């Protein structure tokens, strides 16, 4: 269900924050992750509310992003990470804080244009991703939805999909992908690997566990990559972004079984 105009900015982020808290209580093992992620979401909510400047319609979404504005938000994020984040992240936050402003803009620029949404330093990419995601999402609403687009990269910013969503449709569920950069959802096909296009069903297992209920691992045995899939036909109130992050245990399981994720989510899994 395309969030074309999407509910108000605030409501959209509120739902994710509420969901993070709710899952935090339900899954003690992921409680620490989620409490930190709640802070990150709150930060992203403020950024998103402030920046809903209309897109100048210059084609690719990534050029639309006002890097100056993004850079101005980095300090808040750094302070937040050092206060609430894990020790490693806190240490890097101080180190980044010491660099000057143009360097932040540089990180953001390289991250934004990298198209694959990831560079070597997990911490730099964390700061960049969290900051740019909020801005990119408000922009992507201005890009029209194309019902016939079934590509495996985001139609708006050609970003890499973060997770897959099974939305209820008739007697089954249609598969949607959520972009790791601009959080846009677009309709995709079932029983196919988004990376290598593998369609042999024997190579596309789906691993699920009763404890994780509606979140499962959609893996591909050919390119050994996986995506976590949120099944909205089981829990209609799930918030894909947050539910995927909450089930970090599946990421560990997948890694132990030799699968790799194409791009880590906001909290590094």
């Amino acid at each position: 269900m395309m969030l074309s105009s999407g509910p108000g900015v605030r409501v959209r982020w509120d739902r994710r924050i509420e969901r993070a808290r709710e899952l935090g209580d339900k899954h003690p093992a992921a409680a620490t992750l989620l409490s930190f992620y709640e802070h990150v979401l709150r930060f992203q909510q403020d950024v998103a509310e402030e920046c809903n400047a209309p897109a100048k319609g210059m084609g690719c979404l990534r050029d639309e992003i006002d890097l100056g504005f993004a850079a101005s938000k980095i300090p808040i994020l750094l302070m937040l990470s050092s206060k609430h984040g894990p020790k490693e992240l806190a240490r890097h936050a101080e180190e980044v804080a010491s660099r000057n402003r143009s360097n932040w803009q540089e990180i953001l620029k390289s991250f934004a244009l990298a198209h694959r949404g990831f560079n070597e330093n997990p911490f730099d990419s964390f700061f960049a991703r969290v900051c740019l995601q909020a801005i990119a999402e408000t922009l992507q609403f201005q890009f029209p939805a194309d019902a016939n687009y079934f590509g495996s990269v985001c139609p708006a910013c050609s970003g890499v999909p973060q997770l897959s969503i099974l939305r209820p449709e008739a007697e089954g569920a249609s598969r949607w992908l959520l972009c790791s950069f601009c959080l846009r959802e677009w309709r995709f096909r079932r029983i196919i690997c988004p990376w290598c296009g593998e369609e042999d069903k024997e190579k596309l297992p789906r691993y699920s566990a009763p404890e994780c209920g509606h979140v499962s691992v959609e893996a591909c045995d050919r390119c050994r990559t996986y995506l976590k899939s949120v099944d909205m036909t089981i829990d209609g109130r799930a918030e894909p972004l947050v539910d995927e992050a909450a089930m970090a245990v599946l990421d560990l399981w997948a890694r132990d079984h030799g699968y790799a994720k194409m791009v880590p989510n906001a909290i590094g899994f």
Partner: protein
Amino acid sequence: MTNGWVDIKNTDMMLIMGGNPAENHPCGFKWVIEAKRNRDAKIVVVDPRFTRTASVADQFLQIRAGSDIAFLGGLINYALANNRFNHEYLVNYTNAAFIVKEGFKLPEDGLYSGYDATARTYDKSTWNYEEVGAGAHASDTHSHAVQSSPVPPPTLPPNVAYDLSLQHPRCVFQLLKQQYSRYTPEMVERITGIPRERAIKAWETFTSIRQNGDMKKAGTIIYAVGWTQHSSGTQTIRTAAMIQLLLGNVGRAGGGVNALRGHSNIQGATDMAGIFDILPGYLKMPVPADTDLKTYLTRTTPKASKPKEWDSFNYWSNTPAFTVSLLKALYGDAATKENDFAFNWLPKIDRKYSWAEIWDDMYNGKVKAMMAFGMNGVMIGPNAKKNIEALKKADFLVVCEIYPDETSEFWRAPGTTPEEMAKINTTVYRLPGAGFAEKDGTFVNSARWLQWKWAAVPPPGDCRLDQEILARIFLKIRGKYQQEGGKLPDPILKASWNYTNPNNPSLAEVAKELNGKALADVTDPKTNTTIKADQQLPGFAFLRDDGSTMSGNWLYCGSWTEAGAMIQRRDPADPSGLGIHANWAWSWPMNRRVMYNRASCDLNGKPWDPDRKQIWWSEAKQKWAGNDVPDFKPDSDPKSHMGPFIMNPEGVGRLFVPIGAVADGPFPEHYEPTESLIANPLHPSQSNNPIAKRFKSDMDKYGTPDQGYNIICTTYRLTEHYHYWTKNNPMNVQLVPEPFVEIPAELADQMGLRGGEKVKVTSARADYIAKAMVTKRIKPMMVDGKKTYQIGIPIHWGYRGIAEDAGKTAKTPANYLSPAAIDPNAYTPEFKGFLVKLERV
């Protein structure tokens, strides 16, 4: 279907007749409702019963079963009288302008010219076009005396006389007008029982899309076996084709003639020629007169027959390439140029071996054994009791099924005493086959989409895949011929069976073989692309008749190319929005989704309806372009006036069918069903179809009204059940638990019958016992002044199933009743519209 399921959403007008899609194709019916909701499309339903399709229709007309041609003839008459056609489409895209030979006679008295009463056949030489300059010498002299030596069958004149002004008394248009001038509303009311003003209202509605030739809108005709299962079923469907040609609907998005096939792979079974009279790809079976390949090819390869100025692609001219490629596929290296590509190893048929004839022969002791892989002969009938008796005379019967079925247990059918059982010497092998989810392979749906399906689970228990069972039997027979020899072992030994696992051929390899591959380098002159040896062929344009290519079915060439399995593609995109979905699986021929789509453009290649552009002539590229694959010669400029119907020798649609392509006459004529209440009002002397075949065995009796059979009976299916399968599924048995007979309320009142009481329906052959469903949905009708009642029987219950085993049914299959009278072209038995008696049990 000429169009497709999703294409129905584009239509503006629908005639749903001879079919009940709401009940038998519910998920396909979604598109009818889509058209109704989004395009305000009108639905006209004509059916002997008020069905669930009728419940959402705008107009419903109750018709007497078996009188469809009368109603459709009346529609043609109405369209012609009210100028409801487009002149340009009619003249250029149909053979309306062709002039018919001297000596052709319309069937005022029920018979066309050339009828031989004793042999009950037609001499079809007069059913032909007139050749230009024919007056000087009769091109083919033949005498009317009984032919001692076989006279060559009549052929189409290469150069046909025509009159574009459509005024010539013998031009097809005038003959059409004259033929259906007899189908006045009054006559239609007498035959069909439909009140004349309701018929006129329906005709007016359906032809309203072509008000004075305006081509913006498109109308479609949706039908199913309600039309096919009659003694002149093929002609009924021909009438629909003629209507759609006349109204200019063929080739249009939302137009065409959409046949709803009943089962998941009936279309595939006909394409693959699982039937006696054709070879895969609708190639004709050889007859004894075809002494060698060349004679066979000259007989079966048509030559173009058109007005001089026009152009006709006449694609069947490639028959030699298709045939040789097929023979190479069947016999591989053993098929060489020297042995005529093993042509003579094919059996040659001198008569009909259709379904009803097989059972007749078995009953007469000619056919000794049967292998039934997934077909329940005893339940299908017709005249199923005769099938049971026939099986009792057979040597052995092999049944491959997934549920205990009636055919494999004919020897303990209800009413068989232990003594009789002891006297039945048929050995019956019941082999457990695999269910649909346990085997892969291709299904072809009504819309000609070949869709591969993947096996989900291995067969349970000791079941084997069907292809493995067949392969093991064939290879065991081949082994025996190798050791002990026997009659003509060569074809058996040399049939190409080189699969990686011969005992269980992988269907993927077979699918590749169906697509066909090059045996030597093959180049296509026009696009000079070369296909190396052993590479899959991209399309049937590459097939050659010199044995350098092979293809199991030329129609499927292009389904599994070097680029991979087109039939496994699952991209749901449809950029055109017309429901074409070009990248979802593959539709024959050449992934063309709407056939004859050249006819969706006017003479200079511009689409009639700019909102629904399928294909168009792009002047820039000098090629036909479009959202769909053009059903045309890609580079043929519209100015060359090549007809849109590339498969016909004439290149244009056939309002008039020459030289017996349809056995019972160039124009459909209403004939009464085999068992009918009245004499044919049009021509009482020739009431029935003169060449519809009846059977003479002692079990084949045909009821007449004066023997007391005065109620018309039709058989049909329900939404909740699928033929004879779902009587084994608890959920479906719960939805509709028991067999019943639909009886009109007035008839029930007359007999003092209440709903739920047991009734016995008796036909001339057997009886059927079930509970009465008294309904107001079938009303009495006045047919030719006689008050007639119609009843309906669903076919889903036999003597093995959940309800049957629990003793809740009378264990009498519906097809005990149906008559074994078959259609002269399609040989389909007359399941719908025979006479019965009705009494309380």
